[in-house]
């Protein structure tokens, strides 16, 4: 049984297509992050799961029930919003029990739930305060509390940390992670922050233009991006994509760029389909953190590149090199001294590369 199942879901606003044939499944207790740039449809998808938006095509199932036409309050979900959306005229207690009161839960049960949740989230001392008297972190905690008291099957989070300052954001991120570990409730979490997505999700669905680009574990998203969009979106700075061709001779595959004599051997790469590789136009993808200034293992490919630019950011520096007139970025510890405008010896870790078809932009 899947806690949440979305089938062939499409959504338009007028003539604009916001979501296109979305298919998505979540197992009980998983933490799914919907990640993507703004305008990719991730919030719309979350609103559809909540029942706040209508569907043009397809279905949403919660616990195997088709809830596509069920009211939000009857879907057994709870939602936490970016602006917290605490009711301004009610105090914390009233905010938290508003939903239970609407559902006509008995007074004893409401008190019991309230006590349990407010102790758990450490807001029991704030119950009589108005939202305007709370700090950002406290408001967020109350908003989560309001969702918790309903004991929903699925938690929906809509960019809940975006309104907090950087330090508080990291703290609250850890708290949400802990919360999920303790409660083991299924979560769908929308964000545009890749660090948040990586650290929280058991699964990440990366979206762009209303289509899910890749739905996988954080490790696979990072190591084996399924297309150039994912490769480019995840990681900071993003993956270097060097344009060139594959060359196959006597069962050995290598990568060459146009009009150069640099030839990078491709050994042990896990091709999806190992045919018609010769002369294929591809992007050679390597992350800045997989380029080293000294040899890290035997397979490393040694290359001399000219350093053009250095960006110092404290604990590390980002160097830009010239690879046959294409920019290649590398990340080094800031203690390493590299001269600009001179050739530097670099090592590419070839166990960590990705290859993409230049035409379809899909991983090969």
């Amino acid at each position, binding site marked *: 049984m899947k806690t949440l199942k979305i089938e062939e879901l499409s959504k338009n606003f007028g003539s604009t297509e916001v979501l296109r044939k979305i298919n998505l499944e979540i197992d009980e207790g998983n933490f799914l992050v919907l990640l993507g740039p703004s305008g990719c449809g991730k919030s719309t998808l979350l*609103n559809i799961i*909540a*029942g*706040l938006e209508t569907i043009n095509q397809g279905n949403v199932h919660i616990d195997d029930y088709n809830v596509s036409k069920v*009211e*939000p*309050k009857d879907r057994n*979900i*709870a*939602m936490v*919003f*970016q*602006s917290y*959306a605490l*009711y*301004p*005229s009610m105090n914390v207690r009233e905010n938290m029990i*508003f*939903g239970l009161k*609407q*559902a006509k839960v008995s007074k004893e049960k409401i008190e019991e739930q309230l006590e349990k949740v407010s102790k758990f989230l450490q807001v029991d001392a704030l119950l009589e305060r108005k939202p305007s008297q709370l700090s950002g972190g406290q408001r967020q905690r109350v908003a989560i509390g*309001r969702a918790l008291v309903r004991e929903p099957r699925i938690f929906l989070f*809509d960019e809940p940390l975006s309104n907090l300052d950087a330090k508080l954001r990291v703290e609250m991120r850890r708290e949400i992670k802990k919360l999920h570990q303790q409660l083991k409730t299924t979560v769908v979490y929308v964000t545009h922050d890749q660090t948040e997505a990586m650290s929280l999700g058991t699964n990440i669905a990366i979206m762009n233009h209303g289509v899910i680009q890749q739905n996988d574990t954080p490790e696979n998203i990072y190591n084996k991006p399924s297309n150039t969009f994912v490769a480019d979106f995840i990681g900071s700075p993003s993956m270097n994509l060097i344009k060139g061709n594959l060359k196959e001779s006597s069962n050995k595959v290598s990568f060459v760029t146009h009009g150069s004599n640099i030839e990078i051997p491709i050994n042990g790469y896990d091709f999806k389909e190992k045919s018609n590789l010769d002369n294929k136009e591809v992007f050679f993808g390597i992350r800045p953190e997989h380029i080293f200034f000294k040899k890290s293992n035997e397979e490393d490919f040694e290359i001399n590149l000219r350093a053009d630019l250095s960006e110092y950011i404290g604990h590390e520096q980002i160097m830009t090199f010239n690879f046959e007139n294409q920019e290649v970025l590398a990340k080094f510890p800031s203690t390493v001294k590299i001269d600009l405008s001179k050739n530097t010896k670099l090592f590419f870790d070839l166990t960590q590369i990705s290859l993409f078809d230049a035409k379809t932009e899909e991983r090969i």
Partner: protein
Amino acid sequence: MQDKTHSSYKQLEQKSKYTNMFLRWFLYFVLVIFALYFIFPLYVMVVTSLKTMEEIRQGTLLTWPSGLNFDSWLVAWGGRGYGAGDTFLKPYFWNSIKMVVPAVFFSTFIGAMAGYVLTKWRFKGDKWVFLFLLFGCFIPYQAILLPMARTLGVLGISNSVIGLVLVHTVYGIPFTTLFFRNFYVSIPSELVKAARIDGAGFFKIFFKILLPVSTPIIVVTIIWQFTQIWNDFLFGSTFSFGEAAPIQVALNNMVLSSTSVKEYNVDMASAIIAGIPTLIVYVLAGKYFIRGLTSGAVKG
């Protein structure tokens, strides 16, 4: 450029100090002039209302009255006590109250509801509905007199306080809707979403969540509507006469229909009485008025 010595900076500092002082005093001077200019008519009205006719004839406009003589106020409010032809304000004052209270209440309430729907429950064509409502703000009073008279006739409520309540409610809705719409636009729609998930319906969300935070805009709307309706003369004089007339119409009749001598003291007292309720509303709710008008610019 030449170097400025320490002393030349001192001189410049002195100079700018004097310039600032002069400008400040000039500002106060202008403000005082304007204050006097605006208070002058009120002064004349109050002073004249406290004089006897004898004093008015002998003194000038600005002469101080010989004593606190409220006779003309009593006459303006309660009349002289003889039968026909004696017009006084008391019954019409209550007419106006009976007209203004329900009209303000209904127009404010309907405007709040409409603003809520237009911002939080968007529907197809809602922009057009709002546009037409806005259009209602620009229709001149005179243009709706005839159709409105016909409507009141058909409904059988012409020349009645209820009729005036209807006229003022309908005419006020475009303005009140505009006020509330602009206020609710600044309130995050996520509140409504959260309440929907919590199981609150259309009316519950309005009454429990939006209305409790609407105090500033409610006050603005009440002041606006109260002033408009209380001070209205055209609708009052067109759709009512005789005993059903509101106070502004009665005031007009009183001042114009005096057959014998013009009693300036009674006229002035009447005019002040007719203006007092709006003054009270402004004094009580004035600070909310400013706050409400600027709210939304800075979220509190």
